[in-house]
């Protein structure tokens, strides 16, 4: 299976690991991620305004690129996934935005939300299958108690993201189980860490990160995993400091025995 891949700015920079482990794991699991050419930054925040067109165009370009290749579009970064998925929904369902965006872009054939946007985790769950992953795990992460930190962007708004139950998600827990570790379910796993405001409102972000990490620790998690570079940064920077945070792809790569390759 071959997917169009949208890495996003952070994965080319501060979150290189997230990207590298994802690619290595994909190879081990037998699917291919083909980076789309000339992708542009998604903007990091989905422009909520119904009259915002320009800020949605970079996403539409990426989506259209995948459509032209006839591939599903895969992302690893939660924020990029969120933005792409929501813009795609607009292009599919909101007449006004679709018309205006197409008028602007003047594509050969108008883009109408045809591309299927998938998060890497969704590929693992729906295309590869967690049972299949379990079979391919060479270093089961036995004995590790891992808390999944979902954050907001993957889950909400639930209707559009259609990723998992937004109030009681299970995909990352199933993922953790597939790697041979024990998932820790804690109530703050879908609460916001305050990543977006961490630049100016440090104290606020600190409060929020602490709440999340204290809750996870309370339920005896040894570590957290996340799919979002911003959450990663924020939890590390503004959290309690005594709970390690990893990208989910790193643990995947480790369990699949391809982590060393990446380190090289």
């Amino acid at each position, binding site marked *: 299976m071959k997917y169009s891949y949208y890495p996003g700015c952070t994965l080319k920079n501060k*979150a290189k690991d997230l990207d590298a482990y994802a690619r290595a794991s994909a190879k081990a699991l037998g699917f291919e991620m083909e980076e789309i050419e000339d992708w542009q930054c998604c903007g990091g925040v989905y422009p909520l305004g119904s009259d915002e067109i320009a800020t949605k165009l970079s996403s539409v370009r990426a989506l259209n690129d995948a459509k032209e290749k006839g591939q599903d579009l895969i992302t690893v970064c939660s924020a990029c996934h969120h933005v792409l998925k929501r813009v795609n929904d607009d292009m599919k369902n909101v007449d006004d935005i679709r018309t205006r965006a197409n008028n602007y872009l003047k594509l050969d054939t108008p883009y109408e939300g045809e591309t299927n946007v998938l998060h890497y985790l969704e590929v693992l769950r729906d295309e590869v299958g967690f049972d299949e992953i379990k079979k391919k795990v060479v270093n089961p992460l036995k004995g590790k108690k891992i808390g999944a930190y979902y954050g907001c962007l993957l889950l909400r708004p639930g209707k559009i993201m259609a990723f998992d139950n937004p109030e009681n998600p299970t995909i990352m827990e199933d993922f953790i189980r597939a790697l041979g570790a024990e998932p820790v379910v804690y109530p703050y796993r879908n609460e916001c860490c305050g990543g977006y405001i961490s630049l100016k409102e440090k104290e606020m972000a600190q409060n929020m990160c602490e709440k999340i990490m204290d809750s996870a620790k309370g339920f005896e998690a040894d570590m957290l995993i996340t799919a979002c570079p911003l959450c990663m940064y924020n939890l590390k920077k503004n959290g309690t400091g005594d709970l390690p945070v990893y990208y989910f792809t790193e643990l995947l790569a480790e369990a699949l025995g391809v982590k060393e390759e990446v380190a090289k």
Partner: protein
Amino acid sequence: MAYTYGNTQNAAERIKEISGVNPLKCMKCGKCSATCPAFNEMDIKPHQFVTYVQNGDIEALAQSKSLWKCLSCFACVERCPRDVKPGKLIDAARQLVVRERGQNYLTADEIPELLDEETPQQLLVSAFRRYRR
């Protein structure tokens, strides 16, 4: 800050238009405020956004701290039983401010001192998108 929105009803209409939210659907249950992780930092609380828009008191909303404290985490959007989506309203108000007033919450000059080694690009671009025109 002496600048005011000429016709307040117009500004309210703009907010409704940008957000696509009908504030009249609100039944004042307060679930948004019960949900909001930034509640304590806000001067105008999420459930009050609706009333401000309804009353056309956009100036107060524009001046509020809440505008910049909202995390865009969509928790209120997800849980609102009436499809009112206070998060969308506040986002629209924020856009109105940065667009029409040229009032950037964050200027380019301020940024370097806020950065550290690990700051991801994502945070920078999102800050730009959220806080300035």
